[in-house]
């Protein structure tokens, strides 16, 4: 399985750091080109590879860590998305979903990536918490996952666990996934999971 993070702002950088610390190889790219990422990559070591956008989008799992409006630009950079998993780590920062035709934002994003399985996760924590999956007491931070394809949910939950988080799969975007909407009940909650 190959992974790419698109976007190198706070969110993308925090995710890249998490991959590096967890020993999982990842490619990072943004719309400005590899030169803009060299410093970050140098800081994170050999598991983080810099690529141009086009090459990065070949990964099996593409993580969108760009501002919401930019997802269309990313989508257009590739002809087809069949067989790929797209992780929506973005937030549509408006209360009203009217501009999205009333869809939850990840279902709206999915329209731009025909053939891809879109999974929402990594969107719900501030970058500082995202960068540290372990809480001070050694327990794992909760990361919620939602998507319309059970298999992709399971695959992404497994990635989330490999990155050190405690995944909880909420089901479909328009059902359990609703709780991950902007200002939703499960967003910006600093939760850790203990053994039962």
């Amino acid at each position, binding site marked *: 399985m190959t992974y790419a993070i698109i976007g190198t702002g706070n969110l993308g950088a925090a995710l890249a750091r998490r991959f590096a610390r967890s020993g999982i190889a990842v490619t990072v790219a943004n719309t400005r080109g590899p030169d803009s990422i060299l410093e970050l990559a140098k800081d994170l070591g050999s598991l983080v590879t810099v690529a141009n956008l086009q090459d990065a989008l070949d990964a099996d799992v593409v993580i969108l860590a760009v501002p919401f409006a930019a997802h269309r630009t990313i989508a257009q950079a590739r002809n087809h998305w069949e067989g790929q998993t797209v992780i929506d780590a973005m937030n549509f920062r408006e209360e009203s979903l009217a501009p999205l035709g009333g869809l939850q934002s990840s279902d709206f994003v999915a329209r731009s990536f025909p053939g891809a399985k879109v999974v929402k996760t990594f969107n719900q924590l501030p970058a500082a918490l995202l960068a540290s999956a372990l*809480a*001070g007491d050694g327990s794992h931070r909760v990361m919620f996952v939602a998507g319309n394809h059970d298999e992709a949910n399971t695959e992404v939950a497994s990635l989330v666990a490999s990155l050190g988080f405690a995944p909880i799969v909420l089901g479909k975007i328009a059902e359990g996934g*609703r*709780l991950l909407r902007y200002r939703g*009940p499960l967003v910006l*909650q600093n*939760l*850790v999971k*203990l053994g*039962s």
Partner: protein
Amino acid sequence: MTYCIIGSGNVGTALARQFARSGITVGIANTHGPDSMASLVKELGEKVIPLPLQEALAADVIILAVPFRAHTTVAAALSSWAGKVVVDAMNTYGVSPEELKGQDFTNLVAAAFPGAKLVKTLNQLPAKLLAQEPAQNGGRRVMFVSSNDEGAEASMGQLVADLGFAPILLGKVSEGGKLIDKDGALILQNIIKQG
């Protein structure tokens, strides 16, 4: 606001313990009568008041901590539920899909208590965790709350907070509340909210 727990099994006992620890007065009743709870009440102190079922049902907030099938017996004990909050703290082990007639658990319970505002919470942890001090590991144990009535959801969120938990309001029973219904993703999760 007056509270009463119906049921004195593992869940009812765990809840009574949280009320006592938090200094919030609560009635407790079961179908065996107050004498059956003498030792529990002695242990938990004066904040926990054993009552006959009928008297207990006079409380503003009725917390159902009985086996699922017993909720209809409780419902039948009062002719009107109008204006009351009923907290569904029942779990759903061993209840067949046929008994549910295709409905959400909580909606089925709501139908048995016409006029009451039904809130689902205090149902999602094993009794052992429910009884523990909710302040843990530098945070508080999460308790999810769901209701179709926003006002009742908010006031039970406050009660849950007063009992020491970190409430998270999930919204309507057939939406966010599904996650704490039977086999829901947020059932039996030992989660601590930090910061």
